[in-house]
């Protein structure tokens, strides 16, 4: 799917981010093309999630630059808001709105943010719930769903909002391994819809299957990146090898 003629949708240029004395990102650069699916792997605390959170401004970078559609996002502007609207995030802890029903979790943001009428919003919500196979849960509340179902609602919410870029921050880490499968297959089903997806994950096999490119982050820097066949099956970096060895022993 990577194609040189396709323009970059995200350019990350030498970004740094510290929390107090701890430098979490030590000069990360990465360019992502429209429609590309990238998995970010690495051990806990390596900076994967922080990288993702910097892209949609949940964290402010200390230096460097992030461009989306060639427009810098770390400057407050109206165009930046528009860009942020097109960047969605799926969180580890789902972050559904507990006071809204499943349907409302999708339709209310559409009405509030995108200013769509209730009738249209409800219809769009039901359509996207069908895509994640949860149309029978429309009137349930988040607390009545399993972790896997909650995450699928969260994904449906982003689909309905029309996010061009979806950032997945360890979408299956808080879910029963048995149910993680349903979330992963939902993500897989989005692979050819033209959306750009960045997925922070610990599921190496899933990453290998779905990604156009895999990025291995260690201690705040990108150690290795490339197509799955290279990074997973034939890693060049010693640290990548070590990481994958450990994971392979585990599973």
């Amino acid at each position, binding site marked *: 799917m990577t194609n040189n003629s396709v323009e970059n949708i995200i350019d990350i240029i030498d970004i740094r981010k510290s929390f107090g004395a701890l430098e979490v990102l030590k000069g990360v650069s990465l360019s992502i093309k429209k429609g590309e699916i990238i998995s970010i792997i690495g051990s806990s605390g390596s900076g994967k999630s922080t990288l993702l959170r910097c892209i*949609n401004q949940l964290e402010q970078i200390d230096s460097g630059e992030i461009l989306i559609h060639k427009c810098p996002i770390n400057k407050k502007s109206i165009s930046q808001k528009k860009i942020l609207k097109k960047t969605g*995030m799926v969180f580890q802890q789902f972050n559904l709105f*507990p*006071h809204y029903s499943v349907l409302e979790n999708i339709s209310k943001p559409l009405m509030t943010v995108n200013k769509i009428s209730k009738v249209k919003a409800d219809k769009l919500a039901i359509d996207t719930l069908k895509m994640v196979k949860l149309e029978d849960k429309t009137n349930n509340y988040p607390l009545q769903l399993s972790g896997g179902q909650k995450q699928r609602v969260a994904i449906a919410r982003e689909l309905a*909002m029309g996010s061009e870029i979806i950032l997945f921050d360890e979408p299956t880490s808080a879910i029963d391994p048995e149910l993680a499968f349903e979330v992963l297959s939902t993500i897989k089903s989005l692979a050819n819809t033209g959306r750009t997806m960045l997925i922070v994950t610990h599921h190496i096999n899933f990453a290998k299957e779905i990604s156009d490119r895999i990025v291995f982050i260690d201690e705040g820097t990108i150690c290795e990146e490339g197509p799955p066949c290279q990074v997973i099956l034939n890693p060049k970096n010693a640290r990548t090898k070590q990481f994958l060895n450990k994971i392979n022993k585990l599973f």
Partner: protein
Amino acid sequence: MDFLIVYRNLPFIAEATYKTLIHTVIAFAFALAIAFIVGTLRSFNLKRLPRLFLSFYVEFFRGSPLLIQLFFIYYGLPKFNIVLDSSTAAIIGLALNGGAYMSEIIRAAILSVDKGQYEASYTLGYTGLQKTWHIILPQAIRIAVPSIVNGFSGILKGSSLISVLSITELTRAGQLIYTRTSKPFEIYLVIALLYFLMTYIVSLLALNIESKLSAKYN
């Protein structure tokens, strides 16, 4: 025991109960509005000046006796040509005092809403106001309801102090009947029961609201 005294004074007591209730309800409505505005504002990262102003309001009204506040509003403010009738002064005093306490309840409830809710609404593109109104406050209210009801009881009981502004509410009515009849046991027992009954009914009401609000979470 001579509860006939109470019976004979029933119309008087009923009227006083009404006065207590009407002052309490109006003051509570204003206190609630103050609490929501102040509590919500104080949960934001405000600039120094408004932050100091609001925290001064809250600390001052929580840190000084309601009785003194009532005296000040009724007797003190005329010095600046602000002359209020006793009912208005009473309602302002009760509302400002109750609002200060209840704003802390709202603020704490807002701060207890999960951080993920803020992040999710931010990434979905909610503006600050939309986020507060649609996402944070509805969840905070559910948390705050039991304590807000306590706030109502507090104002109701505090309203006994407005008797010093010569408003013939329940407490003052009790005093008047007592000085006429010298039957403190009977009369104060009934007055206390009336206060209790009112707060108890409100507590039951709150329980009902609480279970309705929580229904979708269980």
